[in-house]
Every structure is written in structure tokens, then in C-alpha cells.
């Protein structure tokens, strides 16, 4: 089923691929959380146009497939004259796409904090940024941590989709090895097992974390 010799012979290509996937995941997670945080705050803002704009952004990205979004930027970035190459442009794609999902998680996290906290912070004379920074976000982050980490595992799996536009991420380099050596069965089985070995232990840990950090009210 698995040709270990073939895997060993191509270990450099495969390791590079895995590193690329991990980089993309880390970058999109951090970028997505920062942008998602801004989107969530905009969504909850009392200033209507800002809130509508953020809602439109989130709904647009959540109603189309990630594959489609990958192609948007794949075609649009060169169309507007930026020659940065697909392996760099997907970093933008994934950040913008994930921001929509992270913003929904963060919004739910913020909304899970009781109104009394907000009122108390204002009553103590804290400004809006101070209230967010010292009172609301620390509690909200704790509540949403497990969901966010789960989303990161999903994101890691989704990065495999960049294979479609010919990028050599882990899945992409597996495909290259598979077609160069006529070893579809062996290499795709290997890819499935490798992804499972990365994601399963993390998922299990997250399940335990989920139980430990229950929503505090």
C-alpha cells in the first residue's frame, strides 16, 4: 500500500511541502485572527454603515467555496498587474478568507460575555478601547480558544486545496511524486495517513481542552 522507499527518496520535496503548508496555516491563522477581530468589532459597532460593511464582507466569503476564492485571487492579482506568483498570493487569499470565519467565532465569543461586564467597565470610567482590551477580549478569547484552534486544524486541512493551482504544498508535492513515479495508490494513501497523523492527535487534545475550558459565565 505504501512505498516507504519512494517516500524516503523524495523526503526533501515532501518536507518542503509540509513546511509550506504549515507556514501558510500559521500566517493565515494569525492574519485571519487580527483581521477577524477588526471585522467582529466593526460588526458589533453602533455605527451602522461600518457594521453593514463588515456583515457584507463576512457573508460574501462565507457563501462561496474556498476553491472559488483561491481562483479569484489567482486570476485577479495578475490581472491588476501584480506579478507575485500564486505561491505568495495564496497567503493573501487564505488570510482574507479565514478572517470571515474567525470574525464569526470572535463575534460569538464577545457576545457570550454578559452585558454587565461592559456596563461595569464603562461605569469605572474605562474608554471603549480599554474596555475591549482589559475586560471583554481577555474573557472572550478564553471562551473561544477551543473553537479557534479547531478552526486552525480545519484551515490546515484546507491548505491542501492550493494543490489545484499547482502549488507544491504537502499535498502538491505528494501529487508530483505520485505522477512522476506512477505511484498514485501508494502516494495518496501516504498523504491520507500523514494528514491523519498530524490532525488526529491535535483534534484529540482540543477535545480535552474543550472540556476543560467550558464557557464561564
Amino acid at each position, binding site marked *: 500500500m505504501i512505498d516507504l522507499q519512494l517516500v524516503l527518496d523524495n523526503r526533501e520535496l515532501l518536507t518542503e511541502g509540509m513546511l509550506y503548508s504549515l507556514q501558510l496555516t500559521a500566517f493565515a491563522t494569525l492574519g485571519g485572527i487580527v483581521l477577524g477581530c477588526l471585522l467582529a468589532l466593526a460588526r458589533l459597532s453602533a455605527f451602522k454603515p461600518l457594521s453593514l460593511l463588515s456583515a457584507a464582507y463576512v457573508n*460574501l466569503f462565507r*457563501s*462561496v*467555496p*474556498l*476553491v*472559488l476564492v483561491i*481562483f*479569484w485571487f489567482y*486570476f*485577479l492579482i495578475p*490581472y*491588476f498587474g501584480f506579478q507575485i506568483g500564486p505561491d505568495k498570493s495564496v497567503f493573501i487569499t487564505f488570510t482574507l478568507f479565514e478572517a470571515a470565519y474567525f470574525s464569526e467565532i470572535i463575534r460569538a465569543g464577545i457576545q457570550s460575555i454578559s452585558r454587565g461586564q461592559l456596563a461595569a467597565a464603562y461605569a469605572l470610567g474605562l474608554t471603549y478601547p480599554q474596555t475591549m482590551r482589559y475586560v471583554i477580549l481577555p474573557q472572550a478569547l478564553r471562551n473561544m480558544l477551543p473553537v479557534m484552534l479547531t478552526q486552525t*486544524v480545519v484551515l490546515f*486541512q*484546507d491548505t*491542501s*486545496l492550493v*494543490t*489545484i493551482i499547482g502549488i507544491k504544498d504537502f*499535498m502538491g508535492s505528494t*501529487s508530483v511524486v*505520485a505522477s512522476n513515479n506512477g505511484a*498514485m*495508490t501508494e502516494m*495518496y*494513501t501516504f*498523504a*491520507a495517513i500523514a*494528514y*491523519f497523523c498530524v*490532525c*488526529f492527535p491535535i*483534534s484529540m487534545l482540543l477535545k480535552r481542552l474543550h472540556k476543560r475550558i467550558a464557557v464561564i459565565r
Partner: protein
Amino acid sequence: MDLNLDWGVLLQESPTGDGPYWQLLWTGAKWTVATALTGWALALLVGSIVGVMRTLPYKPLAWLGDAYVEVVRNIPLLVQLFFWFFVWPELLPREIGLWYKQDMPYPEFITAALALGWFTAARVAEQVKSGILSLPRGQKNAALALGFTLPQTYRLVVLPQAFRIVIPPLTSEFMNIFKNSAAALAIGLTELTFQMKQMVEYSNEVIVSIAAVTTIYMVMAFAVNRGMAWLERKSRIPGMIGGGR
């Protein structure tokens, strides 16, 4: 910057031989819907069975259900698509495998529907399980105390309530299967995103192609959303908070 949008391109003949570009997109939309719906039927069937299995008092069955869900949820969809397309026929007995590779009608469509179905089934199973577990324990215990057998308890008491509870979370899974079907372009299914790629490459009308396809996806998402909202209203359980949640 001059964008030069030419919306008329949608009416022009495409070089693929499938008629004008709008028809290219229409064919793509049909494949997307067909794949999503076929996959969804499989996902509902398998997901319900696996979901119920995971709540049964027989350890091996529950373990088997859990194992299935964990395996499917921790392997990317694209890898699963490739598995069903390239690896699966090799695992079948020789003759069936050959037929699968050479003579099966619409191989991309069937493979994509199968892969999406099994993939989504794990998510459906998760929802069905939590739906069953969210019922008050008394429901099951009362049914058993009244002398119902376990199958009767599930069929007459637990499942009719659980299925109505899981409809709202299933809405987002139903939406996801439409979106996930786009990944099937990797095995050559001519669904909507695949057709957009073709249209961009042949016509060079980047913005028009993207706008048209994105609009179609948004219309689909909206239709699914409204349809499920209607179903949700129809299936509320009276007496529960939020009418069924």
C-alpha cells in the same frame, strides 16, 4: 484604471463546443447541484446510521462509529477525493476495479458524489449524535420502562424528536456540501468553478467570469438558506425553547 467590462461575452460562442459562455456556466451549475444533492442523500443516510450507532449501548458499534468520524474529519477533502478516484478502484476486486476505471458512466460525477457523501456523513453523524444526546434522558428511559424494545424506542420516541432538533445545524452542512463540491474540479468534474476557470482562460474576461460565477454561488446559498429556514419553521417541536433548538 480602465476595466473594459464586456458583459456581452456571456452570449458569445465558447471554443469548448458547449455553446455560448452562459451555457457553459449553466452546465457547471447543474453539475454542482447534482453532485451536492446526490452527495447529500448519501450523507444523510450514512450520517444518520453512524450517528445512531454512536449512541447505542453496544461498545464495539459505538467505537466503530467514532472511528469513522475521526478518520474522515482528520483527512482533507481533497485527499479523500483523490482516494476515491485513484486508490479505491485498486482496492476493489480486479474486474470491478477495471469497470470502475474504464466503463463506469460519469466517473468524475460518481466519484465526487461518493467522496462528498462519505465526507459530509461524518459531519451529519456528529450532529445526529449530539441531537440524540440533547434529548432529556427521561424520554429514552420512559420508553424503555414502558416496555418498548431498543429499536422501538429509537424509531418511535428518540429519532422523531432528534431529527427535528438537528435540522438547524444541518442547514450549514447542506450549504457546505454545495461549497465543497467545488473541490471536485481537481478530479475533472466540470462543475461551476471549473467552468469559470475555462471561461477565464478562453475569453480573458476575468471580472465578468468571476462576477457571474460568484453571483450564481450566492443565489444557491440564498436558496438553500431560505429552503432550510422554511423546513425549520415547519419542524419546530412545540414546547421547546426557541421552538426546537
